[in-house]
């Protein structure tokens, strides 16, 4: 049997080693804790949040719980019957009190134009539906119904017989409780009486202590809530909104992602969007394609400079390095705007070309507000991110390799291509990853010099975050961008090998 190695004090060696290491690890962890915390708050959590938002859809369920329950339970499609409208009436009344109906309207507006105004209008109307007759009939039969205490006691005692009323009452109570309030006399709204009326109509016999109300309900004619809704906005009478509500009933939806890829959900399944509404695939394609172009122009322009930096004498190299870093000292906005001045039709470059006579004054080149402008400006802005990693890798390649290659009989070109270049590839790799990932998510420059043809997907994301306020779609677009980068990174690792990436 193998002896267990022991430390001087008799404890097993393994354990005392583990203890010593643990202390070191804890100390290390303590040192990085602030950064970890910072990254968690500013990076991990927002990304998690974004991933979540891209599929989250509980606003429909949360705002219209009753409606969704009845709507999804039914078999047939098309405009539903009175029962669904009643549930919608109760849901909307409560939502209106909480001012949630407009939010739902905006959310549904992404899926169906006009939904927003429909909800706003209906929200104003629900208070004026003709359901006052129920209220009057019941309170006339028993004035105790004007007292919230009576409501509370009766509804609680007969919850089983009055399902709708109990549900509406408890949700109504919750609304007030959330504000630290109680239901007052004035808050005994028509919809409560409507629920009570419908429950009593459905009951076979009067629940205990509700004889008067039961009789009154029996004696009152029903009011069509469906008609009232269609009255408020006739779109309630068309099947479209009901389809949308059914499609977006679940708490989680792939809708944002489908939308991001130019697809949409329809009652018949997933379908491609009509031609004139397809924009995102084109935008993604353009973003990736232009980012690749930018990366390649950065390699082409940066490689010789990095080589110079690595091979010039120290003093000259330092001056050159400062020139490379100089752009970092000016604001991004200023640099981009400078390109605008340079490239525009009445700009410096065109002026020079016209003056030299290469370009006719009438046909000045269009170099801005298109893809060309974006590529030029972004290549310039991202160039240092390519040069620096290349430089730091090239610095580690001793000149003796080139000399060795030449002494072995290689021409200058062969020596460069077979000996120097392969060793500089890790720098190109690091620079390319950096530039490509920065480019793919770039926003300001395409916004300023890109026009309509040169904008990137990020500009669309920004639009959805700050203008259309469709954060779910923005999150889905962002997630797709993130996945695209990860996939490219993975492919890069497979082809080039991530071990071949060095920052120096």
């Amino acid at each position: 049997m193998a002896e267990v190695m022991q430390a001087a004090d008799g404890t097993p060696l393994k354990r005392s080693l583990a203890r010593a290491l643990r202390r070191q690890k804890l100390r290390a962890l303590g040192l990085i804790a602030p950064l970890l915390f910072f990254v968690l708050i500013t990076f991990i959590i927002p990304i998690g949040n974004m991933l979540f938002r891209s599929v989250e859809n509980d606003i429909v369920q949360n705002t219209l719980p009753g409606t969704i329950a009845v709507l999804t339970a039914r078999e047939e499609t098309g405009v539903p019957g009175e029962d669904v409208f009643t549930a919608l009436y109760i849901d909307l009344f409560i939502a209106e009190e909480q001012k949630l109906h407009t939010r739902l309207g905006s959310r549904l507006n992404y899926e169906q134009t006009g939904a927003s105004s429909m909800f706003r209008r209906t929200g104003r109307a629900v208070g004026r539906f003709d359901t006052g007759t129920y209220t009057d009939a019941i309170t006339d039969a028993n004035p105790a119904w004007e007292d919230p205490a009576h409501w509370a006691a009766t509804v609680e005692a007969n919850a089983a017989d009055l399902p709708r009323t109990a549900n509406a009452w408890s949700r109504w109570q919750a609304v007030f409780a959330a504000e630290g309030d109680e239901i007052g006399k004035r808050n005994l709204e028509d919809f409560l009486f409507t629920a009570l009326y419908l429950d009593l109509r459905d009951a076979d016999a009067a629940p205990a202590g509700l004889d008067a109300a039961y009789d009154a309900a029996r004696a009152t004619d029903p009011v069509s809530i469906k008609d009232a809704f269609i009255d408020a906005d006739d779109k309630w009478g068309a099947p479209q909104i009901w389809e949308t509500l059914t499609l977006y009933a679940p708490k989680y939806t792939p809708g944002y992602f489908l939308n991001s890829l130019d697809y949409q959900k329809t009652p018949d399944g997933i379908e491609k969007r009509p031609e004139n509404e397809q924009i995102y695939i084109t935008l993604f394609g353009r973003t990736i394609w232009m980012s690749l172009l930018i990366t390649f122009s950065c390699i082409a322009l940066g490689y010789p400079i990095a080589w110079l930096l690595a091979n010039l004498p120290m003093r000259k190299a330092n001056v050159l390095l400062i020139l490379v870093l100089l752009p970092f000292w000016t604001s991004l906005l200023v640099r981009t705007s400078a390109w605008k001045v340079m490239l525009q039709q009445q700009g410096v470059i065109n002026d020079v070309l016209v003056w030299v006579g290469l370009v006719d004054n009438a046909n000045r080149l269009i170099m801005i507000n298109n893809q060309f402008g974006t590529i030029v400006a972004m290549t310039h802005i991202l160039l240092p991110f390519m040069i620096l990693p290349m430089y730091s890798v090239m610095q580690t390649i001793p000149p003796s390799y080139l000399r060795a290659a030449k002494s072995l009989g290689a021409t200058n070109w062969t020596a460069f291509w077979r000996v120097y270049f392969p060793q500089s590839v890790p720098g190109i790799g690091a620079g390319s990853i950096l530039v490509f990932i920065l480019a793919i998510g770039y926003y300001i420059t395409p916004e300023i010099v890109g026009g309509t043809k040169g904008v990137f997907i990020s500009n669309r994301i920004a639009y959805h975050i700050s203008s259309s306020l469709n954060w779910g779609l923005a999150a889905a677009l962002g997630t797709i961008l993130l996945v695209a980068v990860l996939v490219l990174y993975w492919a890069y690792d497979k082809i080039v090998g991530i071990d071949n990436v060095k920052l120096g």
Partner: protein
Amino acid sequence: MADTANDQAFVEFERVQKSYDGETLVVKDLNLSMPRGEFLTMLGPSGSGKTTCLMMLAGFETATHGDIRLGGTSINNIPPHKRGIGMVFQNYALFPHMTVAENLSFPLEVRKMGKAEREEKIMRALGMVQMQDFAGRRPAQLSGGQQQRIALARALVFEPELVLMDEPLGALDKQLRETLQFEITRLAHDLGITTVYVTHDQTEALTMSDRVAVFDDGRIQQLDPPDTLYEAPQNSFVAQFIGENNTLMGKITKISGDRCEVTLDDGEVIDAMPVNVTEVGQRTRVSIRPERVEMDKSRLMPDVHTLKAEVLEFVYMGDIFRTRLRVAGNDDFVIKTRNAPDQVRLKPGEQIEIGWLPQDCRALDA
């Protein structure tokens, strides 16, 4: 015959000068002529211009003035890759992204050699340095000594007639260095290659070379076989640079043929051999090797001058004894004696008398 004349001077430097900055000459008037098959070492302190000379020969630096000839033709205008000179660098310069075999294959590929021929040559070259089993490894997977062997094989694989080595063993430990020194010299002689070897290690230079060129201050101070260099240094720089040496300062008081008398600064008189002193009254630095100092009067010529000396220190070094003396006011006068059974072991404070054969004491420039 013309052929032998060419052989006599395979590599030639004629009045070569080099300046990097246009202000100072790094190489001043270099003249050198090497026959085919010679192993020549450039030895000198750091900064003396050895690497510069090698780089001019390889074609990576251009001579500011003068002519460099290879096999009788001037190579001043031939680019490095056409010179066909093998080179071994101090940091090995093995291409890290290629395997050992690919490294060796490189010079053959650029010469458009066929695959079968390449493989045969690679294996033969690896065999020369006993590294056949490492063909598939990358340089990073080899030890320093192994890398240097591969570098050597790579410089030889395309069968150059001339191989240059710039301090190839500088980064290795002593034992490995000695093994490789031996291997390099063996290979160079077996293959009959002409070799220019640069080092600042005098032992290396003395043990490996057919001839050694001692560099200082951009000039060859002396170019001779190792024994001549050691025993007959032509000036005081060489005398001091090669091996251990005792020096005494004085003035020539008598000179005739190959004998002279030097009066030391404290008035004592000694006998010496004039090397680069010519006339009476000239100041001189006399140089004598520690192992040539004699304490046994019976072994000296009867009419020779002797000096009084006081023993300051006695160091037992195993094979030899190293005794430090005060001689003519010089506290660093060292003598070395063999550890023989009858050898006296001196004690500090002892007064002795020392002398030497006049031909062992060289009167050099001051």
